[in-house]
C-alpha cells in the first residue's frame, strides 16, 4: 500500500483564478492511499519544495502527486526535491491543471471538477509506480562537423580549442563554403579571403582537426555520446597523401572545356583541378564526368606530369567508420535557381546575372580578374539595375515564403562598391522595403544612397526585355512617384532567395533531426535552445538553420561549439529510465516493433528458454537498447502480443489513469 502526498499549486492566480484549489486539495485528500493533501501559492518556489520535502519525511510518503503546470515546466524540479528528501524521483507524478485546465476553462465549477479528475488520474498512476534507476552511458570525446563552410570551420576551431578532437566532413574538394566565392563583405568591407583563409589554414594545421574533404556522410547510427558514422571518401583519383598541390596537372590537362563551378560556370577549368589557390586541403581532384582517361582509357597526361606520383586512376570510394559523442550540422545554403522567373530573362540574356555571379565578376580571382565587365560582350556596363527579393517573400507556388535576410545588405554592398570603383556607372536598386537591422547595418545602407548616390527606388521590376542593341529594358514601378519606369540597363543583377543545401533533407533523415517545411533544420527551442536540434547530441551551426550573414553564422557556430564542449566534457550521460522493454515470454519475435521504432533501438536475439515440459527451445525475441530508446512508446502500441511495455508509462498505469478519469 502506497502512502501518497498531494500538493495543489495556485500558480499565483494562474490556476487559483479559475480552479478552487482548496476544494481540489480536499477532494483528493479523500482518495485511497492519500495521507496528506495541501495547497500552496507557488509549489515550485523554495518554500513550496520544502513543503514537499518535509511531507515526504513526516508522512513517510512513498508517492507524490503535484497538481500544477505542465510536466515540461517543473517535473524535474519536483523530482529533484523528492530525491533530496530520499524518495525515488520517479515516484513523482504531475497532474497538469494549468495548461490543460485553468488556462483553457472559464467556469470555476467546471474547471475545479476537471482538476479533481486529473488529480485522481495521477494518483491512480502513482499507485502503480515503481522506483526507477537511471542508467549511464559513456561519452566518446570526439565531435563530427558536417559541412566545412565558415560555420563548420568556426565550430571545429572552437571545439579543438577546448582540447577535443573534431572531424570535418566537406562534400566539396575544399573547405570554405560560399564565403570563398565572395569578394568584400558587409558591413566592414574587408575582403572575404583575407579573413577566411587564415581560418582554413588553422583547420588544416590544428592537430585535433581532421578534414575529410570531397566526402559525405553515408549512414549514422547510435545516440548522444555514442554515434557511429560511415563517411564516404569519394574517389578523387589523386592520392591526398602524395599530392603536393603544385598544380602542374591542372595546367597540362588537355580537357579544357569543363564549366568551372567555383566561378559559377562563367569560365572553364580542366578535368583535373584545384578549386582555387587557397584551397584547403590543397589537393587536386579529377572530375570523372570529364576526364578522358577515366571515360575512354586514353590520355594519362596528368599522371605523366605529376612528379609526386599522386595520380591514381584506379582509386575507388572509400568508407570510413568513426565514432563521435556529438554531431554538428553546418551544411549551409545555396541561392535558388532563378530561370523559372521568365520575366527577368535570366535564361535569355547573359547580362542578367545573380548576385553570387556578381561577386565573382568583382573578385580579383574571378573570371574577369575583378574587372566588372558584361558577360555578353566584355564591355564595361554604364547602367546597372539590381532587383531585390527575387524568389523571396512569395507564396509557395512562386518561391520561398521567407525573407532571405542577407540580400538587402549585400545588394547595398554591391551598389556601393560599383559606384566607388566606377563613378561613371549609374546604379539603380529596386526594393520592396530595405531590411537592415543589425549593428551598423542601416548606416551602411544609408551610405550607399547618401555618399555613393545609388538610386534606391521603391517598387518592383515587372519585366526585363533584352533588346536588339544589347541593352536590357527594365520595366518597373516607382511606387512613390506613382509612375512606371523604363530603364535601359547594361547589366541586371538578381538578389536570389537562398535555400538550404539539397543534401540537408536526406541528412536530417539519417540523423533523425527535424526540419521545417523549407528544409531548414529546426532548433530545440526557437528562443532558448537555438543551436541544438531536438534530437539529443545533434547541434546546428550556420545557414542550415535559417538565412544568416557571416557575423551571425560565426556567433552561432561558437554557441554550437560551446554546447558540444559541454557534452564532451562529461564522462558519462544519465539515461532516461522510462524506456521500453519486452516481456520475453510473451514476445513472438514478429519484428513489428523494430519496424516502427524511429530510433532503431530494437534488435532481436536468439535466446534459450526452458519450456514447461523442461525441454529447451531457442526463440527469437525483441531486445531494446535502453541507451538508444527515447521512450516514445510507438512499439508498445504496435506489439500484437502485448509484450512491449514502457517503464514509468506501463500499459497498466495508463489504463488505471483512464479508469480513474472515467469513474
Amino acid at each position, binding site marked *: 500500500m502506497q502512502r501518497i502526498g498531494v500538493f495543489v499549486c495556485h500558480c499565483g492566480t494562474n490556476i487559483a483564478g479559475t480552479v478552487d484549489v482548496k476544494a481540489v486539495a480536499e477532494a483528493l485528500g479523500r482518495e485511497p492511499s492519500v495521507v496528506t493533501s495541501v495547497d500552496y501559492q507557488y509549489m515550485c518556489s523554495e518554500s513550496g519544495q520544502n513543503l514537499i520535502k518535509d511531507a515526504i519525511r513526516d508522512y513517510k510518503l512513498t508517492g507524490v502527486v503535484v497538481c500544477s503546470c505542465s510536466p515540461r515546466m517543473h517535473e524535474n524540479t519536483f523530482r529533484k526535491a523528492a530525491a533530496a528528501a530520499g524518495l525515488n524521483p520517479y515516484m513523482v507524478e504531475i497532474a497538469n491543471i494549468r495548461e490543460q485546465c485553468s488556462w483553457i476553462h472559464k467556469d470555476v465549477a467546471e474547471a475545479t471538477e476537471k482538476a479533481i479528475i486529473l488529480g485522481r488520474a495521477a494518483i491512480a498512476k502513482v499507485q502503480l509506480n515503481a522506483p526507477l534507476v537511471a542508467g549511464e552511458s559513456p561519452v566518446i570525446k570526439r565531435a563530427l562537423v558536417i559541412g566545412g563552410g565558415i560555420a563548420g570551420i568556426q565550430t571545429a576551431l572552437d571545439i579543438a580549442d577546448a582540447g577535443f578532437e573534431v572531424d570535418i566532413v566537406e562534400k566539396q574538394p575544399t573547405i570554405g563554403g560560399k564565403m570563398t566565392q565572395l569578394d568584400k563583405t558587409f558591413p566592414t568591407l574587408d575582403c572575404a579571403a583575407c579573413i577566411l583563409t587564415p581560418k582554413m589554414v588553422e583547420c588544416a594545421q590544428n592537430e585535433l582537426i581532421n578534414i575529410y574533404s570531397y566526402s559525405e556522410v553515408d549512414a549514422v547510427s547510435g545516440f548522444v555520446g555514442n554515434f557511429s558514422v560511415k563517411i564516404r571518401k569519394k574517389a578523387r583519383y589523386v592520392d591526398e597523401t602524395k599530392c603536393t598541390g603544385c598544380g602542374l596537372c591542372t595546367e597540362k590537362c588537355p580537357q579544357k572545356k569543363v564549366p568551372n563551378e567555383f566561378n559559377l560556370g562563367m569560365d572553364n577549368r580542366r578535368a583535373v583541378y584545384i578549386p582555387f589557390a587557397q584551397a584547403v586541403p590543397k589537393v587536386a581532384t579529377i572530375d570523372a564526368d570529364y576526364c578522358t582517361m577515366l571515360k575512354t582509357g586514353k590520355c594519362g597526361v596528368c599522371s605523366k606530369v605529376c612528379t609526386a606520383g599522386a595520380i591514381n586512376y584506379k582509386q575507388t570510394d572509400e568508407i570510413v567508420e568513426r565514432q563521435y559523442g556529438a554531431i554538428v550540422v553546418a551544411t549551409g545554403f545555396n541561392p535558388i535557381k532563378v530561370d523559372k522567373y521568365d*520575366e527577368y530573362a535570366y535564361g535569355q540574356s547573359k547580362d542578367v546575372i545573380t548576385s553570387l555571379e556578381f561577386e565573382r565578376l568583382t573578385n580579383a580571382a574571378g573570371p574577369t580578374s575583378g574587372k566588372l565587365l558584361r558577360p555578353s560582350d566584355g564591355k564595361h556596363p554604364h547602367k546597372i539595375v539590381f532587383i531585390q*527579393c527575387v524568389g523571396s*517573400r*512569395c*507564396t509557395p*507556388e*512562386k*518561391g520561398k515564403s521567407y525573407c532571405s535576410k542577407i540580400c538587402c545588405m549585400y545588394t547595398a554592398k554591391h551598389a556601393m562598391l560599383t559606384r566607388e570603383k566606377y563613378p561613371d556607372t549609374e546604379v539603380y536598386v529596386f526594393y*520592396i522595403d530595405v531590411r537592415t537591422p543589425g549593428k551598423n547595418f542601416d548606416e551602411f545602407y544609408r551610405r550607399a544612397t547618401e555618399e555613393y548616390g545609388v538610386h534606391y527606388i*521603391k*517598387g*518592383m*521590376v*515587372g*519585366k526585363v526585355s533584352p533588346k536588339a542593341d544589347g541593352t536590357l529594358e527594365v*520595366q*518597373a*514601378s*516607382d*511606387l512613390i512617384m*506613382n509612375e*512606371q519606369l523604363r530603364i535601359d540597363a547594361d547589366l541586371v543583377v538578381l538578389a536570389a532567395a537562398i535555400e538550404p543545401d539539397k543534401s540537408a533533407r536526406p541528412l536530417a533523415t539519417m540523423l533523425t533531426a527535424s526540419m521545417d517545411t523549407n528544409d531548414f533544420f529546426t532548433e530545440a527551442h526557437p528562443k532558448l535552445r537555438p543551436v541544438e536540434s531536438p534530437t539529443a547530441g545533434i547541434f546546428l551551426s550556420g545557414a542550415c538553420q535559417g538565412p544568416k550573414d557571416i557575423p551571425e553564422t560565426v556567433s552561432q557556430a561558437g554557441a554550437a561549439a560551446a554546447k558540444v564542449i559541454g557534452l564532451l566534457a562529461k564522462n558519462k550521460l544519465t539515461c532516461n529510465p522510462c524506456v521500453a522493454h519486452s516481456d520475453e515470454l510473451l514476445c513472438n519475435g514478429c519484428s513489428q516493433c523494430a519496424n516502427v521504432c524511429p530510433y532503431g533501438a530494437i534488435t532481436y536475439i536468439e535466446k534459450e528458454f526452458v519450456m514447461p515440459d523442461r525441454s529447451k527451445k531457442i526463440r527469437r525475441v525483441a531486445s531494446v537498447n535502453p541507451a538508444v530508446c527515447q521512450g516514445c512508446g510507438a512499439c508498445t502500441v504496435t506489439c500484437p502480443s502485448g509484450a512491449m511495455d514502457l517503464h514509468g508509462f506501463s500499459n497498466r498505469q495508463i489504463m488505471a489513469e483512464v479508469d480513474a478519469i472515467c469513474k
Partner: protein
Amino acid sequence: MENKTGMKEQILRMSGAAVQKCMRCGKCSGTCPSYDEMEYHPHEFVYMVEKGDVEKLLKSESVYKCLTCFACVERCPRGVEPAKVIEAVRLEAIREQGRNHLKPDQIPELLDEETPGQLLMMALRKYAK
C-alpha cells in the same frame, strides 16, 4: 460605411482574389502594359478595394483600360490576382449602371430583328438582377 463594406465584400466574392495577401511590392504595376492609360493602377485597385474605397474606382475610366492580359496575375509574388479584382470592379460598375439606367423589363422593347445574339447576351449580363 455599411454600403462601403457591402460593395467590398461583393467585389471580393466575385473576384475570389485575396487582397489581404498583397505586400505592396508594385510588381503588378511594374508589369502592366496599360499602366500609362490608367488613373488607378493595378496595385492601387488591390489596395483601395482592401480599404473599401471602391467609389472612386467605379467612376474611373481605369476599369476599362485593363486589357485582362493577366500579366499581373502571372507575376504577383503573393498570388493576389489584381486583374480579377479589376474585372470584378468593372462588373460592379456595369451592374451599377444597370441599377441606375435600365430595368430588365425595358430590354424587350429595345430589341428588334437586327439585334445580334451577342448583344442580347451582353444585355442580360449587364442588366441581370
